[in-house]
């Protein structure tokens, strides 16, 4: 089995499309990191001087009527220039906590999508070229071949996503330290944990996509089914009286953040003014419900298990072209 997995890893390594997708797993997060760091860069003295020079009329107006700007007349000479500069450089500071709900989610999403594409490209190519039958002429134990490919795809996806996520959060952390920004205790650990949960989600998504491709024997069909599932589930959850607990994105968020909240419809009587304060948690009128991380993991785990079982059974029983 170990030998077969090694062969599948070599096959992955030799596929150009797979390498390009793995490269994209590195490049896109680097671009996201660069954009995040640029958006949160400290304002330099040169920038301040440039803004001051281009805003002389605004600063003069503030100095003439400081109270309209909320500035005490005694401090107008120094404060007005500071205030105008602050307005025009309203740039947030880098924060691990904020990035965990912002760019960090983006990185995880990008990794999930790219690694799903990697898995379906890898498996689909075997069917498209017909080389799967050649492989079976050398290794006829179909279950083992399926498993070796699954281990290779999932392992590569997990390692790639974990390395990229960890590098992303360490970059953010190092930059905050370099910029001398305040950091909450455990912020780095929480961010790294979120990154690893995202890597796990990406690996499971890759496994699911691989299993679906082995079942449908086509990359295009797999992508069609995944897209259809995504759209259909969003619309069905909206259109039918189905709990938001089944929405794919909420479940992904629950895994990533180790728990999230989703919205539920409440009876109209909740809006008749009886409740002046926020309704008690979990009560009939509470519009939000907890969606724990384990439930999100079960949602995707069960899906992948079902597709995986169907895929293995089909691969073991159906004729191979």
């Amino acid at each position, binding site marked *: 089995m170990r030998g077969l997995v090694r062969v599948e890893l070599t096959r992955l390594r030799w*596929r150009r*499309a797979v390498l390009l997708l793995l490269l994209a797993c590195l490049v896109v997060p680097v671009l996201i990191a660069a954009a995040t760091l640029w958006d949160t860069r400290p304002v330099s003295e040169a920038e301040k001087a440039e803004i001051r020079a281009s805003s002389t009329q605004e600063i003069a107006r503030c100095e003439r009527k400081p109270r309209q700007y909320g500035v005490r007349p005694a401090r107008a000479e120094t404060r007005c220039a500071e205030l105008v500069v602050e307005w025009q450089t309203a740039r947030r500071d880098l924060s691990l906590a904020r990035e965990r709900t912002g760019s960090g989610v983006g990185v995880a999403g990008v990794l999930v999508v790219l690694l799903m594409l990697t898995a379906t490209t890898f498996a689909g190519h075997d069917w498209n070229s017909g*080389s799967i*039958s*050649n*492989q079976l002429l050398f290794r006829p134990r179909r279950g083992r071949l399926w498993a070796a490919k699954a281990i290779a795809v999932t392992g590569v996806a997990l390692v790639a996503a974990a390395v990229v996520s960890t590098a992303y959060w360490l970059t953010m952390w190092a930059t905050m330290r370099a910029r001398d920004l305040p950091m909450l205790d455990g912020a780095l650990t929480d961010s790294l944990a979120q990154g690893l949960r995202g890597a796990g989600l990406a690996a499971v998504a890759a496994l699911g996509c691989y299993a679906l491709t082995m079942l449908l024997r086509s990359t295009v069909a797999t992508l069609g089914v995944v897209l259809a599932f995504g759209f259909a589930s969003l619309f069905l959850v909206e259109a039918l009286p189905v709990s938001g607990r089944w929405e794919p994105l909420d479940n992904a968020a629950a895994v990533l953040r180790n728990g999230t909240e989703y919205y539920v419809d409440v009876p109209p009587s909740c809006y008749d003014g009886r409740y002046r304060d926020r309704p008690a948690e979990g009560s009939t009128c509470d519009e939000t419900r907890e969606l724990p991380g384990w439930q999100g993991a079960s949602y995707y785990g069960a899906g992948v298990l079902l597709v995986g079982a169907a895929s293995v059974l089909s691969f073991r029983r159906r004729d191979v072209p």
Partner: protein
Amino acid sequence: MPDLAIQTQGLRKEFRTRRGTRVAVSDLDLAVPAGGVHGFLGPNGSGKTTTIRMLLGLARPTRGTMRLLGEPVPDRLPAVIDRVGAVVESPKFSPNLTGRQNLLLLSRSIGVPDTRVDAAVETVGLTGRDRDRYKAYSLGMKQRLAIAATLLKEPDLLILDEPTNGLDPAGIREIRETIRGLGAAGVTVLLSSHILAEVQQVCTSATIVGHGRLLASGTVEDLLGGSTAHRLVVPDLPAALAALSAAGVPATEQDGALRVETDDPAAVTRLLAARDLWLTELTPVRADLESFFLQLTAADREDAA
């Protein structure tokens, strides 16, 4: 090694289509003796490839039993697959990998050393082109690569489905020589082909199938044996025909000569000479596999119709 390298009994394969069930192989009893080159003949759609695919575990039989090198398959296929090399239909490799990379992936999957790839590449004459991408290969080169893949295992049994497809005449001759050589070296070769002359030249025995059924099987000599036809030319054909008919020797006029069925041509010569009919030509009509095959498959088509 068992007496039979390949054996099937009551082998049947049905495909479900929109129009109903199509029978590709119908109760086929195949017996390929160990050693030598065995031809597997049949017109297109006669079930040859389906039979090979079932033997190799790529397709499931609807019913029937199969044995490869004495082992029941597909149950024991993993136990014998390392001794069986096969090319099924057109070669199937990853187009973006080089020929060498494709072979390396296969050789490493069965744990044979990479040096065997070099040997196989050399045997099929691909040295120097093995580092080109597979998609840049001609059809003939693809066939050679497929045969190289079968040699990675150093097999006891080779199953080749139309292995000379797309090869140039020199390539065809090389492959035939390779097949003959393998047969002489003790490897059993099952050669599925529609090129009848190829089978007649290379094979020691053959099986002919039509519409998924066995039509004939045996050594090539046996299949062609029993032919007593002779071509006979005399100046007075009607007189000779009358004399032979009167003597009870079957004869027909054909292309300005007589076709005579006899196992004693000397007696025919004496008979005609006694009636002052002097032969200018007496030639045995050589039976060939093509005539035999066409005769068999034509009869099968009539039966099926």
